[in-house]
């Protein structure tokens, strides 16, 4: 089996009704009940799990599988949906807000092959460098993190019941290991540009060593922080003796998949408007986040679910699908959901990007406290599942 190297972590179970093809469920072998996150500079640890390990916390699904399932669904709907592969848009003409004589009041799209299409509603799903967004002149708030992500497929040292996703916050950035099968996991290592380039240059053995070191080494611990951390943990266990979880250990890595090492730059982006007259942006075209929370794809799926529901309501009311009323509702609902999530992810990233003792102590306490409060963890999981 060859795994592709991008993996979407789906912490939400709600969207699976879209993917009811057998292909999808057959290859869905990775249902992980636990997610371990911990700080490299201290021993603070947080685990997210469903009680009794009965229900699944989340699914981790390869991009290829999602794409394959979607393609199959599209083939079944070929009388209603036409997919034009290998097409590129070269020009958009936007409708004027008032009717002009002989002007077509819809969006006109010109393709590279000369074909022109007209549409009542244009949905921009063309990623973080969206041409739709750019051409529509929608202002975007964005900045680059000085980080790139290195992704690779990892071969584990020994087969294990691989149902845990691990993430460790190093001062240079979080390193995460997401399970793919009993013997393989996916790596997402966000780090500085320079370090990312170095990692790509390393030979396989050194690369594997650096991964294992990153997960296992304690060199970033300072005495002060360790003492403070263990004191706090004792205090918490007095207050809430039943909370907290047994420490599991991450698997160690033996090798990497052939030619699977890639890096890409990270940034944050948010379109100030998701909609215009007859235009809607979804997914990364509207918002772009750091991979540390595994939420980027989920925000996009949330956009799709919301827009689909609003459009079908509008159609059942005989409305023009490009009308502003329901598009405005889509924008409001999704911005209200996406912005807090994006702020939280950005905050996490900044919080964990430092070695400074006070910040480390603070986040250590925070992480430990959160770990012992089941209500808080439930809230976090519920928010991520929305």
């Amino acid at each position, binding site marked *: 089996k060859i795994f592709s190297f991008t993996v979407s972590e789906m912490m939400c179970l709600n969207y699976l009704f879209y993917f009811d093809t057998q292909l999808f469920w057959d290859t869905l072998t990775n249902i992980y009940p636990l997610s371990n996150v911990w700080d490299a500079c201290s021993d603070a640890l947080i685990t997210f799990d469903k009680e009794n390990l009965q229900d699944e916390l989340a699914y981790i699904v390869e991009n290829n599988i999602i794409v394959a399932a979607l393609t199959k669904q599209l083939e079944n709907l070929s009388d209603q949906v036409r997919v034009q592969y290998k097409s590129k848009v070269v020009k958009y003409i936007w409708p004027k807000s008032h009717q002009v004589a002989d002007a077509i009041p819809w969006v006109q799209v010109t393709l590279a092959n000369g074909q022109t299409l007209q549409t009542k509603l244009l949905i921009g799903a063309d990623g973080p460098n969206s041409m739709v967004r750019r051409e529509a002149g929608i202002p975007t708030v964005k900045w680059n993190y000085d980080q790139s992500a290195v992704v690779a497929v990892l071969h584990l040292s020994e087969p294990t019941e691989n149902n845990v996703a691990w993430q460790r916050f190093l001062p240079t950035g979080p390193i995460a290991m997401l399970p793919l099968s009993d013997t393989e996991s996916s790596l997402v290592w966000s780090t500085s540009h320079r370090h990312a380039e170095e990692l790509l240059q390393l030979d396989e053995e050194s690369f594997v060593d650096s991964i294992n070191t990153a997960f296992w080494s304690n060199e970033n611990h300072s005495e002060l922080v360790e003492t403070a951390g263990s004191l706090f943990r004792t205090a918490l266990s007095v207050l809430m003796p039943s909370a907290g979880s047994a420490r599991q250990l991450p698997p160690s890595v033996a090798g990497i998949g052939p030619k699977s090492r890639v890096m890409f730059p990270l940034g944050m982006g948010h379109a100030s408007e998701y909609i215009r007259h007859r235009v809607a942006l979804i997914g990364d075209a509207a918002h772009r986040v750091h991979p540390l929370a595994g939420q980027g794809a989920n925000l996009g799926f949330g956009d799709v679910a919301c827009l689909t529901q609003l459009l079908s309501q509008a159609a*059942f*009311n005989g409305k*023009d699908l490009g009308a502003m*009323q329901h598009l405005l509702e889509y924008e*409001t609902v999704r911005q209200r959901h996406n912005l807090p999530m994006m702020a939280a992810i950005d905050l996490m990233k900044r919080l964990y990007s430092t070695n400074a003792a006070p910040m480390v102590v603070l986040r250590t306490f925070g992480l430990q406290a959160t770990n012992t409060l089941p209500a808080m963890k439930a809230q976090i999981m519920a928010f991520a599942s929305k």
Partner: protein
Amino acid sequence: MYSKKFGQLILGFCTRCSTSVVNGTPTSIRNTISWTSVCKHHTQFLERRSQMGFAHVRIRSASKTTVDPNEVKRFQLLANKWWNEQGDFAALHSMNDLRVPFIRDNLLNAHGGRRPGKPLAGLRILDVGCGGGLLTEPLGRLGADVLGIDPVADSIGTAEVHAWHDPDLRGNVRYRAITLEELSEKGGQGAGQFDAVVASEVVEHLADLETFTLCCNQVLKPGGSLFITTINKTQLSYALAIVAAEEVLHIVPSGTHDWDKFVSPMELERLLESNGFHVESIRGMLYNPLSGAWSWTESTSINYALHAVKLEEEPNLDEDDPEDPTVIVAQAKARRWYN
């Protein structure tokens, strides 16, 4: 988004001397030539006037090129008023959120589900006083064969130009600048043809409701539905629709509404029931000027929507032979309706 709406509202109060709405009705356009009289003389006068002014009033969708481009330009200017969802007719646009489901669901109850995606396919609907086509188009998109009529030729022109652009509508939405009585005249094209008649925000402008009711009865198939939305005749509606909207805030030009012409649901029900209809349901509607949205409400004191059904043909008991089987069946049917 809210601040934009609020700002518009303030601006509307201060500067607008044409309509907007506290209670969803009217229109300065309609005000110029209103349904104040269904007298033939008046309508003839209107027709003559419109025919004098404009050479090509009846634009057929296929032959757009025969229309004078100046006419089209004027219709398009008007279209900006009618079809701007945040403009003067914003409340009529948002009223679609109530009236389209009201019509759609009641028709689905009566006629059963049709093709998915086109719930009203196969049904013929008449939209009386359609104006710029704000309600006509959604009904057309739901699959119905809709005829929109309005005595104001400008409105019809605007409606036709707007609908022409949408391929979903070209086949099944048509407009005519004609009055209801002309359409319903025996031998005319209107008799007994429609599954539903919609008269939204129209009856409060009519002088002769009896004639209107008879004409509706004329054009409907037996068992066909009549949908009316209008304003109640209460102290509250006087305070809001006349005093507040017209006299105090000057949102609607003074004289747009005549409170005497408002009709209460009870009176409308009485009128309909004595003219061959059975009133199925009456529901109150409420407009929120801050959010610009309508909602259903218990109280019918201000705006309300009414659904009535034309009774099956009632036989003339004096003239028909009581032994005639068709008469017996018809009598039995009539008896069933009244029980």
